[in-house]
């Protein structure tokens, strides 16, 4: 699994000699910060969180990571779909207007 290197690079071919013979991938999509797609962002109220794992389980973009047993939103990639807030059994995730 491509590690979440925050600085995954864009690939630029200077000349035809840099292009691989077979059309094959040479890097990950981590340079593409899909966080810019959001209009609304999830905010987890950790005091109410019961660590049930449901938000992590249902995030389509792998943008909820587990840090020290707590869910943390990865805002670089979270697309703001709202599934986490919708599925949270204790409703401790709020979808708020994205700040510009």
């Amino acid at each position, binding site marked *: 699994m491509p590690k979440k290197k925050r600085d995954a690079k864009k690939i630029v*071919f200077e000349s*035809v000699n840099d*292009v*691989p*013979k*077979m*059309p*094959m*991938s*040479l890097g990950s999509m981590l340079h593409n910060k899909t966080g810019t797609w959001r209009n609304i962002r999830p905010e987890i109220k950790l005091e109410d969180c019961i660590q049930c794992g449901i938000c992590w389980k249902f995030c389509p973009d792998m943008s909820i990571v587990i840090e020290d047993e707590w869910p943390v939103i990865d805002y670089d990639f979270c697309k703001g779909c709202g599934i986490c807030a919708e599925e949270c059994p204790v409703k401790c995730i709020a979808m708020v207007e994205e700040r510009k």
Partner: protein
Amino acid sequence: MKKVIMGNHALSYGAMLARAQVISAYPITPQTQVVELLSEMCADGTLDAKFIKVESEHSAMASCIGASVAGARTFTATSSQGLALMHEMLHWASGGRHPVVMGDINRAMAPGWTIWSDQNDSLSQRDTGWIQFYCASNQEVLDTTIQAFKVSESLYIPSMVVLDAFSLSHTYEVVDVPDQAKVDAFLPKFQPYARLTPQKPCAFNGLTSPEHYMELRYKLEEDMEKVIPAILETGLEFERAFGRLLTLADENRCDDAEIILVTSGTAGYTAHVAVEEMRAAGLKVGNLRMKVFRPFPFDLVRRVLPKARKIAVVDRNISYGHHGIFAQEVKSALHGHTDVPVFGFIAGLGGRDITPATFREIVDYTKSHDAPEENIVWIGVKK
């Protein structure tokens, strides 16, 4: 070891000796014997390969491509309608840089529904980026198949070895079947450029924007332009290993010919017979039997043909709205290199017989005209 085998089986022996690892094929007359023998060879252990009995030719080429990207050496065979059904996947094999080797039994395209020979099926695929070899003897078929694997795998471009329906596919001839050990020495294991393997994950053929497509295709053409030197080099290596030189063409009596015939396939061997007969009658005729059509051998054509006063290209095919395909390509290659007139003849479509008499008629016409009256001179049509 000398064996009496049919043309189709020469393809099977070629694939077997080349140690093809995955064979995926669908039956179509007149190719069936190729895959039947290979199926037997896989079943009795003569050939250590997987034989996938696919449900259509499109799936045959798709699974060859899958096996090739997994890293295996692959082979298939087909004809006419089956080749046409594969068309999308032919583009895929070349664009994906998969060195699949395929036998194509030249069979005319339906309708009228036919099983007999002409070249439209393979020539319709001339733009797909495949190497095309045209054979005229069973020995040539076996030898060329082995050579094709070597050339294709060195440049990552697929090739097709083409045989005429029935006049080559079903004819029995004496063939020297080489030693497996010698073939192993000539043709080493397939080294893929890159493979589909969890050891080195990557994605092949992702969506390609205008920013990148041209460079990928430029690279395919760049390697296509190395194919003719590779054919010549491997042809010499083949001679050293097996005693038979493999060349781009058969040049028969061209040096002092006034009229040079340009032919391909078994019609090319018939032309040899006709040339000998006509020479005996005092006519200065020669025959250039072309064995490689893609990439087009420009240098060869420009070296040999301008020696003559007239050139008579005999096509067993037609590009509707234009004329014979070998004729078009010969003309385009000679443009700017010579003023020698090129006559284009079309004969033998749908398996209509091409005999020495056909060539006498062709040479008669060529002799009696300074230039062709039309782009197509039809031979044998009941008008």
